[in-house]
């Protein structure tokens, strides 16, 4: 194992990690949004993505719809799930302790997995076609990049800018106001209920986008192997923790960092460690929470 090879592998890991991390950034954005809105750790965030992905897969692959129609259907499914979660779980539990709500969202995730098994157990190996099959190799570093990954990064950029603009618009300001001062907001005519629906709707859409975009990277199957639990939920949460559970730009940056940390597990030096990726993520999370629990990429919106 020489230094040159290690550097090459590191370069590839960083590029691949940033590309993969943009998916986690999208998940993290949804987690931060919900946390700011209702103080809830949303364990169903990744399953919004899976539901979107399975719906899009059904539309595009099984029913032969066009890709845009399939994506729209997937996003619609994710949105519906987000709104249902708000109505059936989050709203009834608005006065319960936050751990109770956390268990509730985990229940939503489990229900989503149950539905996946029910509808999709017939097909054990599912693949979603890429939007574009193209790929190229980054000069010098030698890292492969697929067009699909670039599209994901592009979408992340658009979504980030869109969210930033949205929170400067009247609706966005109303959300921020309701999040900070619910009672006062009600008094000035902002419906906290509508704001909650809006928050969960946007979060579900973010999850859906992440799920649908990451679908073509790998094969997927019903269950937590696809996008939930350790696969995308944990990295998403870690990115949100890096952002202090508050900062939107921090969530984006955090997602990219977590993506790179995860890819370090694929280096040759780690090849004899089983589950190197899971070990790195666990150590990294422990490190952040014990050393800087308030987050790292908190930025100027930290006061929000």
């Amino acid at each position: 194992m020489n230094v040159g090879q290690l550097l090459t592998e590191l370069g590839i890991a960083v590029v691949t990690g940033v590309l993969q991390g943009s998916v986690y950034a999208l998940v993290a954005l949804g987690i931060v949004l919900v946390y700011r809105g209702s103080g809830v750790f949303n364990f169903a965030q990744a399953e919004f993505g899976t539901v979107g992905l399975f719906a899009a897969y059904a539309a595009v692959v099984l029913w032969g719809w066009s890709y845009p129609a399939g994506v729209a259907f997937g996003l619609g499914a994710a949105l519906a799930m987000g709104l249902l979660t708000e109505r059936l779980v989050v709203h009834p539990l608005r006065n319960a302790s936050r751990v109770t709500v956390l268990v509730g969202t985990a229940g939503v995730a489990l229900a989503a997995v149950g539905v996946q098994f029910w509808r999709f157990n017939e097909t054990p190996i599912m693949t979603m076609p890429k939007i574009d099959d193209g790929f190229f190799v980054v000069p010098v570093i030698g890292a492969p990049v697929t067009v699909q990954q670039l599209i994901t990064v592009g979408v992340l950029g658009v979504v980030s800018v869109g969210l930033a603009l949205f929170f400067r618009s009247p609706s966005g300001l109303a959300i921020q106001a309701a999040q900070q001062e619910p009672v006062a907001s009600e008094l000035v005519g902002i419906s906290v209920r509508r704001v909650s629906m809006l928050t969960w709707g946007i979060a579900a859409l973010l999850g859906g986008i992440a799920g649908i975009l990451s679908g073509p990277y790998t094969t997927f199957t019903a269950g937590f192997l696809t996008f939930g639990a350790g696969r995308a939920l944990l990295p998403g949460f870690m990115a949100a923790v890096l952002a202090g559970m508050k900062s939107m730009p921090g969530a984006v940056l955090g997602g990219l960092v977590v993506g790179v940390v995860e890819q370090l597990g694929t280096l040759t030096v780690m090849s004899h460690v089983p589950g190197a990726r899971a070990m790195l993520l666990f150590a990294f999370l422990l490190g952040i929470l014990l050393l800087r629990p308030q987050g790292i990429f908190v930025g100027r919106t930290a006061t929000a």
Partner: protein
Amino acid sequence: MTAIDTTTVLPAIDEEVTVSEPDVGFRPGRAGWVGRGLVWALLAWLVLALPVNWFSPFHVGVADIDVLSLAVIYAIGGLSLNVLLGYAGQISLGHQAFVGLGAFASAYVVTNLQLGFWLAVAVAAAFGAAQATVLGAVSLRLTGLYFALVTLAYGTFAEETLFGIAAITGGEGGKPAARPVGFEDGYSYYFLCLGFLAVILWLDRRLTRTKAGRALAALRENPRVAASYGINVKAYTLLAFAVSGMFAGVAGSLMAHHDEVIVGSTFDFQLALLFILMTVVGGLRDRVGVVIGSAFFALLQEKLLVNAVGGVFGSLHLDDFFGLLGELLHVDGIFASGLGIPAEFVGLIVGPILLLLTLTKYPGGIGQQVAPIRLWLTGHRFDRHAGAVTEVEVNDVRA
């Protein structure tokens, strides 16, 4: 940094207040005692005789009895999580790792070191307690919700890294774990599991009835107030972790020798959520409810419940007339069962629905539903509202 910010987890009945005041001094009459005795006898028959086909019109086969043993083991696992989630108010989304660690420790002792089963159980319990205590120490430095993330990451780490060390765990092919001498067949192993459940239930009762239990209740209510009364918050939180880990280790050990081959991938996130389901739907802090809840989900998960229902219907009349149909329904049980959902996934649909109903509508879970019967059985007057949760506790401290 404060210790525990999340004080209340889920509203549930408090055992000490289940006996309502007017009941004091009530003594059942002769008929009352006979009725209670009959129900007790029936329960005893259900747990002790039916599974081994004594005095039973049903037949419990060698594979069915293994499922019943698993239900007992899951009950121990549920009680383990109940100590953390119910008594200490700490959420664990990595509880499957607690159990798994005990399972592999036990299998290693028996298979690699060639030592006895009883020692293996002790080692598994010790391992479980040790790793839980370490996690507990971490939890003392974190707020409740962040700790949930740590347990999630820990569960994944354990499943993929710890249980992936092939030299110890046998890797994907699994680790053999022979049953103890004298308990090789499923029927005697069932009684072994029952014995362990009894011990765990006794320990659990001891825990809640002693000073430790009262201390835990106080710091669940409000850690700051508890600390001001001189309760050592850290020590009792760690105690809860250690006890929970010990129970989980025992459950893991029993699981390993139950399955006789164990694989790391068994201990995945889905199992963690299953434990949450068992405990919450069973009714937090209600050990009868937790045991019933655990057994219910274990039977649901392992298809026995679905198949038994099918079997009862089948044995009534259906396949006497439609022998071939009955044959198909039974032999290909996986393909049958109603909505086209394989029987082992029924739990995945039913479970979350019950969980959400418990959280939003019936906070006492199964424990609350059976509380009237339980109290009646222990000599109280039958009161349909016994054990009902009168108020929803919301003294939640925001981080």
